[in-house]
């Protein structure tokens, strides 16, 4: 097992090396500059456009947060119902899987058609993409509970609600967080795709505008920003996990 410092430094070094390679290949003229901006140019664009990007990012973040929150709530309710009622699990688990094979870019224009250019189609799209990882991880978490443990709870005369909160939910919590991590990245990407296909503000709208004006430095700037936002959201989920599952730290020791 490599040390913590090594695990941090090696990927960071790789990233910096690749950026350097990119910078050099543009500066030496190996790639024409009008096709590919240098990292320094991207950084400059990022700084120059910061106020405008911030206002667009705010729209995207609000949509993502709202969609993610609703998606989690829907996913939670679906998982609890599917765990509680076996016929619902049998009826809906294949349908939920099938629903995830439908490409987002195919659904998004329909949602714009149905719900207009405002907040609604974005939120709906995010809910559709984020509830799935939450539901699937929770259902598998609920099912991971040892049947012997459920017997033991019966011997202790636990009610259904007590079994849920004392045993099932803690067992599913770890699964839930790995699902939530995926959902968090889907949320940002989902918002951008929905904005791309129609809207008045947001990083996706900004993207279509700079693409039409062939401002590739700004294009890369917004890509970097979207990555950063997704990473920040994942980090927030990890932090929440550490706070909610204090026993996992003891297990790793």
């Amino acid at each position, binding site marked *: 097992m490599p040390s913590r410092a090594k695990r941090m430094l090696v990927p960071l070094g790789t990233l910096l090396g690749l950026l350097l390679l990119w910078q050099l290949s543009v500066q030496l003229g190996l790639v024409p500059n009008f096709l590919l901006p240098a990292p320094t140019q991207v950084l400059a664009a990022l700084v120059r456009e910061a106020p405008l990007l911030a206002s667009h990012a705010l729209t995207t973040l609000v949509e993502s947060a709202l969609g993610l929150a609703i998606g989690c709530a829907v996913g939670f309710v679906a998982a609890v119902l599917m765990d509680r009622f076996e016929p619902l699990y049998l009826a809906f688990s294949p349908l939920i899987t099938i629903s995830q094979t439908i490409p987002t870019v195919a659904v998004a224009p329909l949602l714009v058609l149905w719900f207009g250019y405002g907040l609604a189609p974005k939120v709906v799209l995010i809910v559709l993409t984020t509830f799935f990882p939450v539901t699937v991880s929770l259902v598998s978490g609920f099912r991971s509970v*040892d049947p*012997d*443990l459920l*017997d*033991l*709870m*019966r*011997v*202790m*005369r*636990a009610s259904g609600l*007590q079994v849920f909160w*004392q*045993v099932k939910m*803690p*067992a599913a*919590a770890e699964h839930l967080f790995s699902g939530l991590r995926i959902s968090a990245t889907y949320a940002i990407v989902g918002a951008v795709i929905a904005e791309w296909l129609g809207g008045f503000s947001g990083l996706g709208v900004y993207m279509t505008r700079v693409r039409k004006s062939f401002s590739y430095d700004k294009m890369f700037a917004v890509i970097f920003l979207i990555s950063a936002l997704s990473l920040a959201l994942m980090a927030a989920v990890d932090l929440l996990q550490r706070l909610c*599952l204090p*026993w996992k730290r*003891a*297990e790793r*020791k």
Partner: protein
Amino acid sequence: MEACGNRPPATVPALEARRLTLSWDGGSHVVARDVSLVVGKGELVCLLGRSGCGKTTILHALAGLSRPLGGQVLLRGQDVTGKAGNVSYMLQKDLLLPSKRIIDNVCLPLVLAGVPTAEAHERAKPLFERFGLAGCERLWPSELSGGMRQRAAFLRTYLMGHDVVLLDEPFSALDALTRADMRSWYCQMSARLGISSLAITHDVDEAVMMASRIYVLEGNPAAGVPSRVAAEVKVPVAREGLSAAEFALMPEFLACKREVLSHLG
């Protein structure tokens, strides 16, 4: 490490099974037929049989977790057939909840019964010392060794508050030395607390070492031969004050073991 003392059965049995006939998952495949056994007050009895002979199924029925096809389970003379929650139950796995600290794990039966957490903690704390768990209150289960986890599981079982305890191979997941320690520890502990125990095991030495009486199960339900009680063997009384190792070398121990093995076939 001391061998277990013998406790003679009292007149009113703590637990009694009358002609239990059992199936797997309530189906028609009969696992055990006409199983009758008695556990006296304060007695430690073993139910011995090969793997797959239906020991756990019988224990499930005794715990009230499943309904037998026929027969009765009596607790101090009361019919409790198919009713869970009247006896304490302990499994081979410690089944501690990883998400709860040891104190909260052992207090679970109290909290489930509606005792406020603070009061449950107050009631459990003095017992930590007696169960060899002093200082473990605030630890997570993953921070404890196998033997300590099993002690915590015993404390939780004790806090279920019933004086009849069913044990499903409670020591078999432990390493040999810890197992011997835990075995004699359990015998002393249950004697002191006046607990009546029925333990199932496939280990002849363990049965002779712990129990005052042994019910030997025979049968092969997987091959269509339902299990039945082939014999009831009394363990000689002479082990008082002997260490487990000394007892295991005595002619009485070996004679008893030979008898049990002869019934196992």
